[in-house]
Structures are given as structure tokens and as C-alpha cells.
């Protein structure tokens, strides 16, 4: 209860600082209201960004142009239905073994333009599966633009709580496809560290520049928040392997735009020493994640196509874990692939096919899988309908839905196709049908 009170104090203070600034009271609606633009300006089909959406974010969420005079808030609701091919005895507490309806997330957003050069994206989320409220993705930025000798340089700094949440392309982990997944379906055990392992457990600071609207460069670092701070923010730190010191993060990308085409190619990474399970006295593990990514967008009217690809290689030194009996090997590798293609009609209908896979060295103790292998691979198909991307109903023009049907087919799960858990469950038993009504207003 005390923790909840502290979270409430934190949220209310953020509201006071950001929402009630007397000099800016007229220029702080969230983004659609702030800019006067419909969803389709920033998103091909939310949450995937258009070139404009990317530049709005890099510009610190400061661009305005709308005539909204109200407070800067938005709400997100995600009622969902999940079916797996084979029931899951012993699934999430309080839910049936299959065919579950749940309000998966309810989020409150605030932020937007604070000054001409300072803006924010701040999200707090009620998790309907774990039944608790916590801070969620947060990105506060300072940005400026200068023209030097015929060149335009947009530069800035971000403070955020999730490696890659500050990124503007939909290839790397925080914003990659699938944009929404079931919280009640089994997911592969292994993932690289940069794939959301540290989301909301860390604070990060980085500086970035965007030269001539094409070349992007970012460098910064992340450090783990104390366990008591995390608890106060609604995060349960049990079992975490905190960063030891500061973990450097980097991102380099180029995005040429010509006509109706935008093509990005880049690299990103995170490296750190970590304290395995927070147990001190035996030294540290370390990891280096290096990713490459590319995204192509054809932005026609009404036809839009996006192709995305990200590949991450992780080298994981697990010598401290091995000493503690938490790993069999002193060194492991993981490789992660995420590739997808979307066709979007008039920002209203979206059809996506994706391939996800993770693979690497076997380590039964580290991954805890029956086979000892971290290997998983599957396909994801999704059809979504977004009826109000060009503007909502007259009583609330900023209302939008993403009503989706998603099917995930697993070829391999936790190292095997059949008998993945030693109890006769097959990878195909985790094939998931997922329906959602993602609501924003």
C-alpha cells in the first residue's frame, strides 16, 4: 500500500511538473491533439512510425500546430483473448488453462511539448495479468536544431528507462513487430539482453544527432535502479541480474528518403558487466549485444508497405554464473532474428507476416529448458483494422482502435519440436490465436 502511495505521489508530481506549467498550459496536449494531425500522419498503422513520426520524436515531441487547450493526457486499453493449441495447465495465476479474456493493459500517458526544445513521452501501466500498476516506457528529451553551412543538424539528449525505447525505427526491440503479444501465451525462454530484459529496471542517458535528415548517431549508457527505487515505481526486482556500473549503448543509422520511399540501415548495441541474480562475491558476468537492422517503407496513397529486419548477436561471458552453479558453460552465444513485412491500405487495414527466431549454444542450467537448448523459431501473422486513423468520430476525433487477429505458429520451442518439456508437450501446442481491441483516446 505504501508503495502504491509513493507511486501515486510520483505520478501526481509528474502531472504537476509537466501538466500545470502556467506558461505552457495551452501547448501540452498529447501528440495528435498537440499537432492537430490525425494518427495516420505519424503512423502507417499505429504504432509503426512514418518518416514524419520519427522526426517528431527526434525533435523531442515538441512540434505543435493543433488548437487543443486541454490537459496532456491519453489513455490506452488492451482487452484481449488468448487461445493456445494445447491448454496450459499451471498457466498464469487466476486464469483458466485456455481461452482467456483479460484487460491485458490499461495505460495512462502524459508528456508532449514542455518548452520549444523539451518534451516527453511518459507511460504508466496497469498490468491486468499481474494486477499491479507500474511505470512503463518513459522518454524525456531535449532537442535543438541548427543550420550550419548548408547542413541541418538536429541534436538532443534523452533520459529514458528502457534500452531502445528512444529509437525511432520499428526494427529494434522496444518497438518491433509484433507490436502487441499475448501475456498469457508461452514465450521462448531465451532472449538477448537488449531485447527488453532491462525494461523499466534501468535509467539511461544518451546524446544523439541527426545530420541532414539522414545520418543518425547516438551514444549513451544505462545503469540499474536500486531495488527499493524499482519497488517504489511498481517493479518487482526479484531475480534480476543488475548492471554493474554503466552499460554503454550505441546506435548508428542512415535513412535516405526519395520520393515515396524511405530506407534505413543501421547498427546498435549494448554491453555490460552484470551481477548474476544480484549475488555478489563471485565476480560478474558480461555480455555484448551487437545488432544490425534495416527498414524499407513505401509510403504511397493509399498503399503502404514496410519491410523490417533486425539481427542481434550476443556474446555472454557466464563465468560468474558458472561459479555460482547458475550456468554450465563459462561462455554462451545467442543470435536473434526478427523479420516482418506489412501491407497497409489507407492506414486502415494492416496485414503483416513475420519470422522470429532465437538460437545459440546449449546450456541447460542457464536457460532451464528441458533440452538445454535456447533455440526457438516461429511465424507470426496478423490482420488489423484501424477505423479512425484519419480522424475519429465527431464527439472525440482522437479516438482510434487497432482491432487485430494474430496467429503465432511455432516450428521449434525451447530447443525442440516435440516433447519440449519432458511431459509430451509439442512446440505446436504453443501455437497461439490472439485477438485484441487496442483502444487509444
Amino acid at each position, binding site marked *: *500500500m*505504501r*508503495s*502504491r502511495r*509513493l507511486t501515486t*505521489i*510520483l505520478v501526481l*508530481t509528474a502531472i*504537476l*511538473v509537466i501538466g500545470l*506549467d502556467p*506558461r505552457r498550459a495551452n501547448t501540452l496536449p498529447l501528440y495528435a491533439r498537440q*499537432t*492537430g*494531425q*490525425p494518427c495516420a*500522419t505519424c503512423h502507417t498503422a499505429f504504432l509503426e512510425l*512514418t*518518416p*514524419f513520426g*520519427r*522526426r*517528431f520524436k527526434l*525533435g*523531442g515531441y*515538441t*512540434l*505543435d*500546430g493543433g488548437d487543443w487547450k486541454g490537459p496532456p493526457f491519453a489513455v490506452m486499453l488492451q482487452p484481449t483473448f488468448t487461445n493456445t493449441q494445447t491448454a496450459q495447465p499451471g498457466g498464469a495465476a487466476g486464469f483458466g488453462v485456455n481461452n482467456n479474456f483479460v484487460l491485458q493493459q490499461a495505460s495512462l500517458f502524459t508528456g508532449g511539448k514542455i*518548452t*520549444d*526544445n*523539451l518534451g516527453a513521452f511518459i507511460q504508466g501501466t496497469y498490468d491486468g495479468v499481474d494486477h*499491479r500498476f507500474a511505470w512503463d516506457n518513459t522518454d524525456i528529451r531535449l*532537442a*535543438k*536544431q*541548427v543550420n550550419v553551412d548548408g547542413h*541541418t543538424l*538536429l541534436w538532443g539528449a534523452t533520459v529514458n528507462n528502457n534500452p531502445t525505447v528512444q529509437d525511432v525505427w520499428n526494427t529494434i526491440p522496444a518497438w518491433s513487430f509484433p507490436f502487441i503479444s499475448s501475456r498469457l501465451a508461452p514465450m521462448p525462454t531465451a532472449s538477448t539482453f537488449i531485447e527488453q530484459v532491462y525494461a523499466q529496471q534501468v535509467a539511461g542517458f544518451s546524446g544523439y544527432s541527426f545530420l541532414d*535528415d539522414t545520418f543518425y548517431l547516438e551514444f549513451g549508457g544505462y545503469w540499474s535502479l*536500486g531495488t*527499493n*527505487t524499482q*519497488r*517504489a515505481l*511498481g517493479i*518487482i526486482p526479484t531475480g534480476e541480474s543488475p548492471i554493474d556500473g554503466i552499460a554503454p549503448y550505441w546506435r548508428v543509422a542512415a535513412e535516405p*528518403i526519395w*520520393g*515515396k520511399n524511405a530506407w534505413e540501415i543501421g547498427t546498435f548495441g549494448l554491453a555490460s558487466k552484470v551481477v548474476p541474480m544480484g549475488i555478489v562475491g563471485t565476480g560478474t558476468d558480461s555480455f555484448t549485444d551487437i545488432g544490425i537492422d534495416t527498414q524499407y517503407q513505401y*509510403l504511397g496513397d493509399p498503399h503502404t508497405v514496410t519491410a523490417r529486419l533486425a539481427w542481434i548477436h550476443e556474446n555472454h561471458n557466464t563465468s560468474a554464473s558458472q561459479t555460482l552453479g547458475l550456468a554450465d558453460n563459462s561462455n554462451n552465444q545467442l543470435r536473434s532474428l526478427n523479420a516482418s513485412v506489412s501491407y497497409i491500405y489507407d492506414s486502415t487495414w494492416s496485414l503483416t507476416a513475420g519470422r522470429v527466431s532465437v538460437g545459440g549454444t546449449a546450456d541447460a542450467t542457464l536457460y532451464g529448458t528441458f533440452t538445454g537448448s535456447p533455440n526457438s523459431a516461429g511465424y507470426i501473422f496478423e490482420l488489423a483494422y484501424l477505423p479512425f486513423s484519419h480522424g475519429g468520430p465527431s464527439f472525440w476525433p482522437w479516438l482510434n482502435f487497432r482491432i487485430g487477429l494474430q496467429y503465432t505458429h511455432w516450428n521449434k520451442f525451447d530447443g525442440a519440436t516435440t516433447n519440449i518439456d519432458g511431459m509430451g508437450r509439442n512446440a505446436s501446442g504453443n501455437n497461439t490465436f490472439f485477438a485484441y481491441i487496442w483502444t487509444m483516446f
Partner: protein
Amino acid sequence: MIQSASPLARRLLLRRLFGAVGASTLSYSVPFSAAAVIKISQKSVAYQDHPEGDKRCDKCMQFQPPNGCKMVDGSISPNGYCRLFVLNKQAAMRTKALASTV
């Protein structure tokens, strides 16, 4: 289940919270140097210097006469067009009224 924070954690959090509020207050009281408002490049919104059907910049709510835009960088032709076009209903009504008087 949510675990309770210790008194030390609360003090630490409140200290950081007040520090953040103080820093924010300070940042608000120090005016930024005369940096221009950040605008979006013409390239990223597919700006063209001719209309798209009956959609023209001088009918858009973001247009700033004689040749500017609230959102897009650089010189903007009243006859231009870009992806950000949002009809300025007042301007459209004025145009319609003028047309009907001719």
C-alpha cells in the same frame, strides 16, 4: 504481489523526486537561448510545390502566410502540398464565400 518499500527507499525516492522537481523548476526559470522551433524537413513529408487535386497549402491549417508553415521547414508555396495537409475550415469557407461573390 506488490512488496512494500523500506523507509530508506522512500526517503531516497522522495529526495530524488524533490531534486527532479527542483531541477525542472530551475530549467523553466532559465530561458533557452533563441533557438528556433524545431520543424520537419520538406523531404520527410513529401512536400511538392504544386497542389494535389484541390489540396493546397493555403487551405491547410498549418500554413502561415505568405510562405511559411507551422510544421515544415523552409519556404512554402501557397500552391504547394505535403502529407500533413489538414483542411483549414475557416480558410476553405472564406474561399468558398469569395467564389460565390464573383
